[in-house]
């Protein structure tokens, strides 16, 4: 068991022997090891946000034809540290009439919900806790972030914050359904709910076999995080900042950290479920390479999230609800049935045969959906009132009420 082939296992083994050598009982040793492992992972993930903030600001800067942070440190890399130190010394203002315990707990619950997801993400082969209901765990724990937002919006004693909190819940429950349905597709293909098992089953990445499920999962995850184009919960032009309007200082920073980490976490989850997780050349022999592959894939998906933020406008709330309930949910239901039936018939075709037949099915469904959307858009354009003909009043006038009718009404 060398340090290269089993980096975490070797360190854990060494620590275990050390602790056992001190005369601790095996049970206590295991708990202590878990505590150390969880502590290291949670600390690293939480600290990683500092880099994420720099990365996102830099990329958004480039999208908007700016340089982004570039003053503090090389390429502005130390900018988040400076911001962090500054925000540490700011006052935590608790507004009058706020529900104090819930007000403070809100950001903590939100950040904790995001961190908890990392307990089950398989970082390398053999590393990452492998529980047999991990896929369900990610959904269950994913709702914690929304709970935190609801708590803080409710407790702030501010109407903007309350509107934001209720919107958040509406958005989360609407996009939870397509997420759960899309997540069923990799679970069905792999035949297991353990994330490590799903990664191991991806001899061909599931984005090949289920591109539509990946798209649905990606879009609804972005909506659950509340990123642009679905950032109705903090729409600054209508409800100022939404749920964190009354927050300041460190408790606000926890929201900030949680938001960035959540976006990266859904990148990592999408990478695990659809992009093969740690799989890549040489990952089995050198697990650290697997971690690198997972990180690259997670950053690729995270880049898509930032790209969407940089280029799309915010949607209206009725558009958002319609998109989830009247488009994504029916599509995901159809996709689930087709995937299940097709998978039954191509069971003996080998990994590539199965993946390609699923791909063909996905392409056909995607093409039909696009044709349907085109027809729908055409019908909608036909219903739209004609505007601005030359020499004409630009808005269609309402028909005038007939004079005879009004006179009879007046007579009666």
């Amino acid at each position, binding site marked *: 068991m060398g340090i290269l082939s089993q980096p975490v296992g070797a360190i854990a083994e060494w620590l275990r022997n050390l602790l056992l050598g001190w005369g601790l009982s095996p049970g206590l040793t295991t*708990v202590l090891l*878990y*505590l150390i*492992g*969880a502590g290291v*992972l949670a*600390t690293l993930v*939480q600290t990683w946000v500092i880099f994420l903030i720099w990365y996102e600001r830099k990329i958004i800067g480039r999208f908007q034809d700016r340089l982004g942070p570039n003053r503090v440190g090389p390429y502005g890399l130390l900018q988040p540290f400076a911001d962090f130190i500054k925000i540490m*010394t700011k*006052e*935590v203002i*608790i507004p*009058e*009439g706020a529900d104090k315990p819930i007000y403070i707990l809100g*950001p*903590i*619950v939100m*950040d*904790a*919900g995001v*961190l*908890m997801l990392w*307990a089950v993400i398989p970082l390398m082969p053999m590393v990452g*806790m*492998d*529980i047999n209901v991990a*896929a*369900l765990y990610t959904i269950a724990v994913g709702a914690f972030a929304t709970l935190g937002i609801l708590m803080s919006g*409710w407790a702030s*004693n*501010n*109407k903007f914050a*309350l509107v934001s909190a*209720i919107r958040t*819940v*509406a958005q989360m*429950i*609407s996009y939870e*359904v397509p997420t*759960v*349905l899309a997540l*069923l597709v990799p*679970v069905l293909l792999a*035949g*297991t*709910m353990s994330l490590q098992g799903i990664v191991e089953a991806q001899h061909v990445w599931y984005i090949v076999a289920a591109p539509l499920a990946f798209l649905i999962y990606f879009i609804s995850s972005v909506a659950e995080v509340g990123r642009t184009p679905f950032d109705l919960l903090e729409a600054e032009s209508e409800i100022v900042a939404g749920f964190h*309007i009354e927050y300041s200082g*460190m408790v606000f*920073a*926890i929201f900030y*950290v949680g938001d960035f980490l959540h976006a990266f976490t859904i990148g990592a989850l999408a990478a695990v479920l659809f992009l093969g997780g740690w799989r890549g050349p040489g990952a089995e022999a050198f697990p650290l390479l697997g971690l690198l592959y997972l990180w690259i894939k997670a950053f690729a998906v995270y880049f898509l999230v930032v790209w969407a933020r940089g280029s799309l406008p915010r949607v209206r*709330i009725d558009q958002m609800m319609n998109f989830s*309930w009247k488009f994504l949910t029916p599509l995901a*239901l159809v996709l*689930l049935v087709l995937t*299940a*039936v097709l*998978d*039954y018939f191509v*069971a003996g075709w080998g990994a590539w045969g199965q993946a390609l037949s699923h791909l063909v099915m996905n392409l056909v469904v995607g093409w039909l959906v696009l044709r349907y959307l085109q027809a729908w858009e055409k019908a909608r354009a036909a219903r739209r009132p004609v505007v601005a003909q030359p020499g004409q009043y630009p808005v269609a006038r309402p028909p005038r009420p007939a004079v005879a009718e009004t006179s009879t009404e007046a007579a009666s």
Partner: protein
Amino acid sequence: MDSWIYIGIFVALSFFFPALLAVLGWFLGPRRPNPVKQDTYECGLETVGETWVQFKIQYYLFALVFLIFDVELVFLYPWAVAYHKLPLYGVIEGVIFVVMLAAALVYAWRKGALEWA
């Protein structure tokens, strides 16, 4: 069972880290409260009436539809996990279940529960 101990420890730690940050911020920052600063922020206007008032019913309808869907979708997970061991009968059963779900969606749609008015 062992792995759930790890999950439990991780969950406790996930609450501990942000709580630590909040406590740090509480001790490092100044505390100079005054009535104007702690007033409810509404873009400079005085706030009118209670904050916790009755809300639009539409949100509640969506919550009901979601509840039905989420509970039924959880039943599909065991089916998906055991899928490769199922006979054709099990496959058809699953498809019928999904079709029933779709029927519920169509019903809610026709009833107008999904309209944002």
